[in-house]
């Protein structure tokens, strides 16, 4: 076989291998969804959604986990969104290339790589113990907020960076102050990008289990939370608890709860993609 024929063969072999590699990911995804759906779909009924967790698998439901999740999510958004957007604005619009800005940026990159369970440990000690918040929703939300803060900051920066300089110049030329320019021109123009970033960060927060377990999300919460200081459980920690129980009924419950969790996750990611696309079309700079 000539050299070039051999080369072409190798080329083809690689192409096949690459398709195989991609298929592995696709197959795993499909199989995973199939496993989860086939085990859990039949379990989902109105009782499952409205029941409290219980010792018996048949009578257990995700009611408190759902509400706990909603509580935690809303609080997390309320805390992390303003802080994250403000920090992103500062770094992108105000930060000069000095030591402080550099330091904060390195810091954020580092935080993005810290394992989520470490945030749980921080939350346990700082919010749970030192601030006496115990294992409350507030402690959990504060912990998750710190976790997703770097994500929101980075996406805010990207969105703000994309606003063309010419718009800012037009605003300054008319005598607007820095903040007026940011509030009236930069933020409205970058809103879509910021929203996309927020939704993706929230979608990540929904699935976080480890930090909440460490902070103290319980697994047997027989009531719906009514205040931020209440104890709580969330869907992922409920799933974790059910998966570790030996009785077969609990595995089914776990699968069913996973379907609900995945539905939420995919829905949020889908919304983020739609916003991103619609926004890209609307403001063609």
């Amino acid at each position, binding site marked *: 076989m000539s050299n070039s024929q051999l080369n072409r063969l190798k080329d083809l072999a690689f192409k096949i291998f690459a398709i195989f590699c991609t298929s592995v990911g696709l197959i795993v995804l499909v199989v995973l969804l199939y496993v989860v759906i086939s085990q859990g779909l039949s379990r989902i009924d109105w009782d499952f959604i409205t029941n409290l967790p219980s010792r018996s698998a048949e009578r257990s439901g995700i009611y408190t986990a759902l509400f706990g999740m909603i509580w935690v999510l809303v609080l997390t958004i309320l805390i992390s969104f303003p802080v994250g957007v403000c920090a992103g604005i500062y770094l992108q619009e105000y930060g000069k290339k000095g030591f402080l800005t550099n330091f904060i940026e390195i810091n954020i990159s580092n935080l993005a790589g810290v394992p*989520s369970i470490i945030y*749980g440990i921080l939350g*346990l000690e700082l919010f749970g113990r030192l601030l006496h918040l115990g294992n409350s929703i507030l402690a959990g939300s504060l912990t998750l907020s710190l976790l997703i803060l770097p994500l929101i900051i980075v996406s805010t920066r990207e969105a703000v960076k994309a606003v063309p300089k010419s718009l800012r110049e037009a605003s300054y030329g008319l005598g607007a102050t820095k903040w007026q320019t940011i509030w009236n021109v930069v933020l409205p123009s970058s809103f879509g990008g910021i929203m996309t970033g927020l939704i993706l960060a929230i979608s990540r927060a929904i699935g976080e289990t*480890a930090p909440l377990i460490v902070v103290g999300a319980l697994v047997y919460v027989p009531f719906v939370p009514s205040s931020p200081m209440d104890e709580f459980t969330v869907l992922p920690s409920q799933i974790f608890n059910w998966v570790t129980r030996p009785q077969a009924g609990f595995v089914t419950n776990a699968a069913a709860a996973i379907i609900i969790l995945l539905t939420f996750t995919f829905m949020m990611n889908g919304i983020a993609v739609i916003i991103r696309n619609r926004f890209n079309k609307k403001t063609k700079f």
Partner: protein
Amino acid sequence: MVKVKEKAIEGFLIFCSLITVFTTLGIIIVLATETIKFFSEVSIIEFFTGTEWTPLFANKKFGILPLVCGTLLTTLIAISVALPLGLTIAVYLNEYANQKFTAIVKPLLEVLAAIPTVVYGFFALTFVTPLLQQFIPDLSGFNALSAGLVMGIMIIPYISSLSEDALRAVPKSLREAAYGMGSTKLQTAFRVMVPAASSGIVVSIILAISRAIGETMIVAVAAGQEPKFTFNPLTSIETITTYIVQVSMGDVPQNSLEYRTIFSAGMALFIFTFLLNNISFWIKKKFQQKYE
């Protein structure tokens, strides 16, 4: 008056940015203070070289090596899956793929990255382990292999997307030079593009390793809770992260030595990932100049 308002706003914005600095400080201080208290009761030598980890038993041993072993074992398995698959996908997307293919694969990878890890854990425990047990009868119900394999799938997007970015940053002129000399796509990809993007690819691998080391739920569900100083992937083990979850869920009294193991184990974990992340930042910075 307006000036005062502007300054106040700027002050608030700076404060928000500094919260991230406070977070890092908080992590370091919290881990350090409790770890120091821990080492007032446990010898550092035992901690770093002991091969038994039994803080919750009557006969307490505090050697962290079994946990480190478990973490490394699962990470190794994960990387041996994610690296070839992820890198191949990155090269294929960068060199071969057409629009349609990319439009399908990219969202697919995003989906893989978005699935909550507890779901992956469920998958490893209830599907992968039974499946593997049909081929490997010795495989125990909880084992490092299933967890590692599934973790590998989860990390593929990390390696593929960062490597693809690195490949895309290589100037077009290099690729054109290779093709101009009659190279095939494969030769161009692996003899020119990959070496040129090597620093970025190495960074992606290091970050993927760091992610694998910090992963909790997959191993907590599927790998077991038995700390063992072993490299046998077929048996149950415990990682640093699983241990922390295990203790957190238990009834350990605050301020006890057992409670403090959360922090010393956490400190070890934090130091590993911190070192890896910063090595990767350093590599990225040092070698990025090459193609400016």
